[in-house]
C-alpha cells in the first residue's frame, strides 16, 4: 500500500508534465487538425531556454521567487515566438494542402529544432541547479512528498485552470471553440481565423515550455533528445483522452503518468512504453474517440 501511494505521487507529478504538453497537441489539433510533432521538442527548447537563464546567466542566485518566475515566463514567451515563426513560415502555406505534406513538415520541424539545439548547446547533458527548490519534503501519512513535486503539480494545475478559464470565459476562447467546429462558419461570423490559429500556437508553445522547465527542475538533467519521448507520451495522452478535448488531455496526461509509474514500480521500467501503448490501442479499439470523446466535429 505504501509503495502504491509513492508510485501514485510520482505518477501524478510526471503526469502533470504530460498533461501540459498534451494540451498543446489538443488545442492545435482541435483547430487546424494538425498533429504538431514539434510539440515535444518545443518543450525541450523551453527547458534549454530556462537553463540558459538559470545557470549561464546566473538567475539562480536571485531570490527564489524572482528566479522561478523569470525561468518560467521568459522561456514561455521565447518558445511562443519560435512557434509563431514555425506556423508562419512552415505550416501556414500548407494549411489547405494535403495532410501528409503538413505532417512531414511537422516531422521535419521536430528534426530542425533538435539539431539546432544540438548545435547551440552541444550533445552533452546540462544540469539545472539542484537546489532551486528545497529538496526536502513532508509526509502525508506514510508517504513522502517533496516540495518540488508539490510545487510542480501546483504550477501545472494553475496553468491548466488558467487555460480552461481562457477557453471557456473569454471572447477569444469562444472564437477558438467556434473554429474547432467549423472554419468557414467562424469566418463568416467575422472571426479572424488566422489570428485565432496564432493564439492556439502561442498557447501550445507556452504550455510546452512550462512543462520543459518543470521537467528540468524535477529531473535536473536535460539533453536535446528528450523532446521526442515526451512528445510521444503526451500525444498518446491527448489521444487517450480524446483529441481536441481539453479536460480529456489533462486526464489523459495524468493517466499516462500513473500507468507509467505503476508499470515501472510493479513490473519493470523496460516495459512501461509497451504497457502505455497497449492500453492506448485497447482503448481506441473499444472506444475509437478516446476515453472522454473527441470534441471536434467530424467532417464528411
Amino acid at each position: 500500500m505504501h509503495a502504491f501511494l509513492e508510485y501514485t505521487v510520482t505518477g501524478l507529478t510526471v503526469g502533470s508534465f504530460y498533461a501540459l504538453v498534451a494540451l498543446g497537441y489538443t488545442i492545435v489539433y482541435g483547430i487546424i487538425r494538425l498533429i504538431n510533432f514539434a510539440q515535444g521538442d518545443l518543450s525541450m527548447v523551453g527547458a534549454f531556454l530556462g537553463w540558459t537563464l538559470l545557470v549561464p546567466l546566473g538567475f539562480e542566485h536571485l531570490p527564489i521567487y524572482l528566479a522561478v518566475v523569470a525561468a518560467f515566463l521568459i522561456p514561455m514567451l521565447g518558445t511562443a515566438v519560435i512557434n509563431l515563426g514555425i506556423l508562419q513560415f512552415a505550416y501556414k502555406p500548407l494549411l489547405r494542402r494535403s495532410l501528409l505534406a503538413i505532417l512531414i513538415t511537422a516531422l521535419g520541424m521536430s528534426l530542425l529544432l533538435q539539431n539546432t539545439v544540438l548545435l547551440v548547446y552541444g550533445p552533452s547533458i546540462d544540469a539545472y541547479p539542484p537546489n532551486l527548490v528545497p529538496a526536502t519534503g513532508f509526509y502525508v501519512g506514510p508517504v513522502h512528498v517533496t516540495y518540488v513535486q508539490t510545487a510542480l503539480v501546483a504550477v501545472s494545475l494553475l496553468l491548466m485552470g488558467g487555460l480552461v478559464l481562457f477557453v471557456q470565459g473569454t471572447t477569444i476562447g469562444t472564437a477558438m471553440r467556434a473554429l474547432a467546429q467549423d472554419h468557414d462558419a467562424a469566418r463568416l461570423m467575422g472571426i479572424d481565423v488566422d489570428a485565432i490559429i496564432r493564439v492556439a500556437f502561442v498557447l501550445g508553445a507556452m504550455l510546452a515550455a512550462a512543462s520543459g522547465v518543470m521537467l528540468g527542475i524535477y529531473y535536473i538533467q536535460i539533453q536535446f533528445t528528450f523532446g521526442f519521448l515526451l512528445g510521444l507520451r503526451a500525444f498518446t495522452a491527448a489521444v487517450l483522452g480524446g483529441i481536441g478535448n481539453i479536460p480529456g488531455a489533462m486526464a489523459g496526461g495524468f493517466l499516462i503518468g500513473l500507468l507509467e509509474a505503476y508499470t515501472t514500480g510493479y513490473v519493470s521500467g523496460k516495459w512501461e512504453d509497451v504497457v502505455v501503448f497497449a492500453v492506448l490501442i485497447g482503448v481506441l479499439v473499444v472506444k475509437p474517440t478516446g476515453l472522454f470523446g473527441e470534441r471536434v466535429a467530424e467532417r464528411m
Partner: protein
Amino acid sequence: MIGLLADRRIGRALASSREQLTRFPFWVRVIVFLAIVGGVVLLNGDNYVTAVAVSVATYAMLGLGLNIVVGFAGLLDLGYAAFFAIGAYTSALLMTQAHWNFFATLPLAVLFTGTAGAILGYPTLRLRSDYLAIVTLGFGEMTRIAITNWDYAGGPNGVWNIPWPSAFGYEFNTQAAFLVVSLCLLAIAMIFAQNLDHSRLGRGWVAMREDEFAAEAVGVPTLRLKLLAYVMGGMWAGLAGAFFATRIGTIDPTSFTFQLSVLVLIVVVLGGTGSLPGVLLGALVVVALPEVLRQFATYRILIFAILLIGMMLLRPQGLWPRVRRKPKPFYGLRDDEARDVSEEILREHQLQVAARGRHLAKAGHPEVGQGEVLLKVRNLAQQFGGLRAVEDLSFEVLRGEIFSIIGPNGAGKTTVFNCITGVKKPRQGSIEFNGRSVVGLRPHVIVSRGIGRTFQGIRLFKLMAVFENVMAGLYPRHRAMTWQAMLHTPGERREEVQTLQESRRWLSFVGLEHAAGRLASELSYADQRRVEIARALASHPQLVLFDEPAAGMNPPEKAALVGTIRKIRDLGITVVLIDHDMSLVMRVSDRIAVLDQGRLIAMGKPDDIQQDPRVIAAYLGREEDELDLAEARGA
C-alpha cells in the same frame, strides 16, 4: 515563338518515345533499367558508391511497401520499421539458429510480416487516419521494445554472425554481390507493386483514399482492402528486412527506431505519394543526400531537415508525382465501338443480368419478374437524436418502372436512400430486395446484390481519371484473385481489358467518352453528375437510386438527362429518383411517392399527384416549391 515550336517538337518526340517504351511490358522495362543502373555502379567499381547503392535499393523496397499503405490506400503508418524488424529478425534467427539458407528464409520472412500486418490492421480498421498515426506509432515502439527485451533474440545486443547469402555454392560476400542480390529483390518488389497498382486492388485503394464512403457505396469492400494494404505493405518490408539482416551481418533493436519509420515515410512523400518512380527517386535522395552532406558533419541532419521543409513548401506533391490523367485511355483497345454503343451495352447487360439470375436461382433466390415487386420497404423508421427523419414509411417499387420520391427539404428522402444502400441502419422496419432482406448488410454487399446509387453532393474520386472512376464502379464484378493481380496473369489481364472496355461503353452511354482521360475534378458540374451515373451503372445493377441528378444542370442538360434515364429504363434497369425539379419528375416518372416530414402523404401516377389535395397542402406556403408545381402543371 521558335522556342514554343521547339518545345512542342520535343514534347512530341518525348510522347512518341514514351509510346515506344510502353510497348514493352513493365517487367522488361524494370529489369533493363535496374540492369543499367547496376552495370553503371559496378563499372564505377568504387566500394563506397556500391554500398550506398545497396542502401538505396533497401530503402526503395521499404518505400514501395509503405507506398501501398500510405500512397495507395491513404492509411498513415508511422510504425513501418516494425515490419522491417520482424522481417530482419525472422530471417536472422532462421539463419543463425536453424541454419537455413538466406533465400529459403525469404518466404517465411514475408509470411511473418504479412501476418503482422493483419494483426496490426484488424483492430484498427475502423479508426480514423489521425488515430491510425498514433496506433501504428505505438505498434512500432512496442515491437522495438519487445525485441529489446527478448532474450532469445539477444535482447539489446541483437543477433550476431548472420551468414552471407549463398546460392549454388557461391557466397555473396562483396558489396558488388550484394548489389546484384538487392537489385533482384528490388525488381521483384517493383514489378509486384506495379501490377497491384494497375489492378482492381490498386484502383480500389485509391478510390478508398479519395473518398472512403463513396468507395464503399459503389461496391469496394473497404475494410477488406485496408487489411490487405497492411498485409501487402508488411510483406514488402519483410523482403527488405531479411536482406538487411544478411547484408549487415549483425542486427540489434537500435536499427528499427521511429526515426527509420519517419525516413521511409519521407521517401514516399518526397518522391510523390502513390508514384513508383517517385519512390525510387525519394530513396535516392534520402539515402544519398546525407552521404553527400557528410562533409558538413554535425550540420548534416539540420540541412536535411531544412531541405525537407523547403521541399514540402515548394513542391508538396513530391518530386515525381503520379499523374493519373491519360491522354488516350483506350489506346490499343479493340475498336468495336463504331457500332451502336447502346446495343453493345444492352447485350452485355443482358448477359450479366442473366448470369446473376442463374447464380441467384441456383442459390435458391430466384429473381422477381417484370412488373413484380422488386424493392419492398415496410414500416421504415429512422431518427437522428430527437429528429424523426423517416417514420413508418412503406412503399414498393416494381421491376422495370421509374419511381420518384419527392418532398420538401428535410422530408427524409436521402435518408430513405441511405437505409436502402446500407449506409445507415434503419431503427425499425424491413427492406427487401428481390425477396431478400438487405437490412444490416455492408454497402458493398448491397451493391453486389444489384443496387447502384449516386449522391446528392457529387462524390467522385476527384484525383482519379474519369475512366478509372467508372472502372472502380466495376469492382464487384471482378473475379481475379489477389495473387493473380500481383502476378498479372493472363486471366487477370483479360479481365482488366474487359473492364476498360466496359468503362468506355458506359462513358459513351452517358456521352462522355471524349473526357475519359481527364481527372474527375476537371469536369463541369453536369458532366460530373453523368460520370456518377456511369459509375453507378457500371456494376450492372437491377435497381439504381439517383439522388438529385438534375441539381445544378441547365435546361438542355436536364433534357439530355431525361433521355438518359429513359435509356437506362430501356436496358431493364429499375430507377428510383429523388429530385426537386418537378417538371423533370413529372415527365419521366411512372409513379411518384410524396414525403413530408418523414411520412408518406401520397403515392400514385404523376397526374394524380398533381391533383392530390394533401400534396398541394404540403407544398403551399413554401413559395419556391409552389412555383415549381405550377411550372410542372404548365409543362
